[in-house]
């Protein structure tokens, strides 16, 4: 019971953590783009009604923060090599609020006002390209006139998020610097919107889509379909895990009940000799198993609840178990397990069912005991 609930709690915590990372640190609740922009990231497809959109967003009480970005795909080159990246032109304060970029910085202290062509790069990219704070690099991309543009940038900070592939692919520069190079003036390609409450998501999306039908208003579920898929399949995965745990439980129960029968062979033989029939003997083993399960369930449940609550407050650090691996799948190594209250009834039914099925073999063993042989032992 403890193992089942603990795994579900861990799984729920990991999933919740992943969803929060997606919303609070990667894509925000909503993103607004020109309908053709995301097809091939042509700089020319800016949001024509950006000011109107921003005005509407600022007037909505559901909106917590907004980050208006200009985006292009380009090549990052250093003396050691080159790599394709997504260049995000951002307003630092907005970005710090929407994607918590400031909190992710592990080296340097972010953008410096007044300094031109500063760039924030991910730790994985920095390691791969052997870049440090102050290192110089060249970004090359096409501008709005489809002309190749190159510019030198200096690494101002290095950040690290829970999603290593994202860190490798995304670099951040000041929006005015990028816009100048792209030749789009004050143009914007993307507006990321963070809401106060998750529950408002669909309503705000509908409202914005109705107001600006010419643009693509997408929720995080549409932008990150793999996370959405994960949520939708969580029950299946968790029950698969439960089945594996139940297999272990079944072996435990079979072992316990076989031992109980083995230890009480004489007693069972005596009861059969005195007149206890096979049906009663079968129900005796069944009842003992059920009592074992019933008495173990609240204990397991209680320990699981205490452990889950403790780690929910203090976090469960799994960095020792493979930080790189967790990060490469976009998961934080600090998990806050959540007690799976919604699945307790299901887990209890599975545990009881497994216990009953598991006791069949020991019960058959007991039924096959001949009183004479049993009494001789």
């Amino acid at each position, binding site marked *: 019971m403890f193992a089942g609930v603990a795994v579900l709690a861990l799984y729920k915590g990991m999933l919740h953590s992943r969803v929060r990372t997606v919303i609070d640190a990667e894509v925000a609740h909503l993103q607004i783009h020109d309908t053709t922009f995301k097809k091939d990231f042509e700089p020319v497809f800016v949001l024509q009604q950006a000011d109107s959109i921003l005005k509407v967003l600022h007037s909505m009480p559901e909106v917590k923060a907004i980050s208006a970005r200009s985006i292009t795909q380009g090549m990052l080159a250093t003396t050691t090599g080159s790599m394709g990246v997504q260049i995000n032109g951002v307003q630092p304060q907005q970005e710090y609020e929407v994607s918590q970029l400031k909190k992710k910085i592990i080296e340097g202290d972010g953008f410096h006002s007044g300094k031109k062509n500063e760039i924030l790069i991910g730790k994985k990219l920095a390691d791969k390209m052997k870049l440090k704070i102050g290192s110089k690099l060249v970004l090359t991309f096409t501008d709005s006139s489809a002309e190749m543009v190159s510019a030198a940038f200096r690494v101002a900070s290095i950040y690290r998020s829970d999603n290593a592939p994202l860190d490798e692919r995304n670099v951040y520069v000041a929006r005015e610097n990028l816009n100048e190079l792209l030749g789009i003036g004050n143009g914007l390609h993307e507006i990321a919107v963070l809401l106060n409450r998750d529950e408002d998501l669909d309503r705000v999306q509908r409202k914005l889509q109705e107001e600006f039908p010419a643009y693509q208003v997408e929720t995080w579920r549409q932008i990150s379909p793999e996370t959405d898929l994960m949520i939708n399949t969580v029950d299946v995965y968790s029950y698969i895990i439960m089945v594996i745990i139940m297999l272990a439980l079944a072996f435990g129960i079979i072992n316990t009940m076989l031992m109980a029968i083995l230890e009480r062979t*004489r*007693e069972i033989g*005596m*009861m*059969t*000799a*005195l*007149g*206890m*029939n*096979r049906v*009663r003997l079968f129900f005796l083993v069944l009842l003992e198993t059920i009592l074992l399960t019933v008495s173990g369930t609240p204990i397991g449940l209680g320990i699981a609840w205490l452990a889950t609550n403790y780690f929910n407050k203090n976090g469960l650090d799994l960095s020792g178990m493979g930080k790189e691996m967790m990060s490469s799948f976009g998961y934080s190594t600090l998990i806050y397990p959540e007690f799976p209250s919604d699945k307790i009834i299901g887990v209890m039914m599975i545990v009881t069912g497994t216990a009953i099925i598991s006791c069949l073999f020991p019960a058959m063993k007991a039924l096959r005991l*001949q*009183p*004479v042989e049993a*009494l001789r032992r």
Partner: protein
Amino acid sequence: MNTVIDAHNISKIYNPDTIPVYAVNNVHLHLLKGEFTALVGPSGSGKTTLLNLIGGLDKTDTGNIFINGKDITQLSAGKLIDFRLHNIGFVFQSFNLIPVLTAKENVEFVMLLQRIKRSEREKRIHTLFKQIGLEDKMNSRPSQLSGGQQQRVAVARALASKPQFVLADEPTANLDSKSASNLLDIMALLNKEEDMTFIFSTHDQRVIERARRVITLVDGKVVSDTAAVDTNVLHETIK
């Protein structure tokens, strides 16, 4: 006098396909109600096997055993269990009380299997504990009782189901002489007052001396039976 046990030509053979060993060899037995019988013989003579066959705990290879006219060798396993429950009481050498139950609960266990009403159970329990002289130990667990006391509880358990007869396999083997004497007194009293039939296997000379009929087994065969004479006398008397 009613016949309680009538066994004809019964045999129990171990290893019949290799080297056959006759644990019980072509035994005929006729026991009447109220007999106080000892099965004696050296170790391996077949005393316990014969008791097991009579008690329906083991299957005969040949012959038939009639208990109150019913051939128990023809009963299915399930019906045999039910037959034992209502007709035969057992006392085992090593007591075999259920350790987690009290003395009272051990005695009550058989009556619960028989689905006897609570009031009737209580009444019978008090009578039995009075007869075995352990009224003050009813709520003690087996571990809190001496060997002799445990065996007396086992006798009470055997009698709780109001059986036709009681089979006792070396009932005094694990008891000191005083406890053995006490147990025999109780069994003899029950035999006398309630006309309860007792058949016990034993090596114990004190038990043999108290028995009114002694059947001696050697190599699975009955070599002597004191009742052969007694029964004839009895039959003559009836005539």
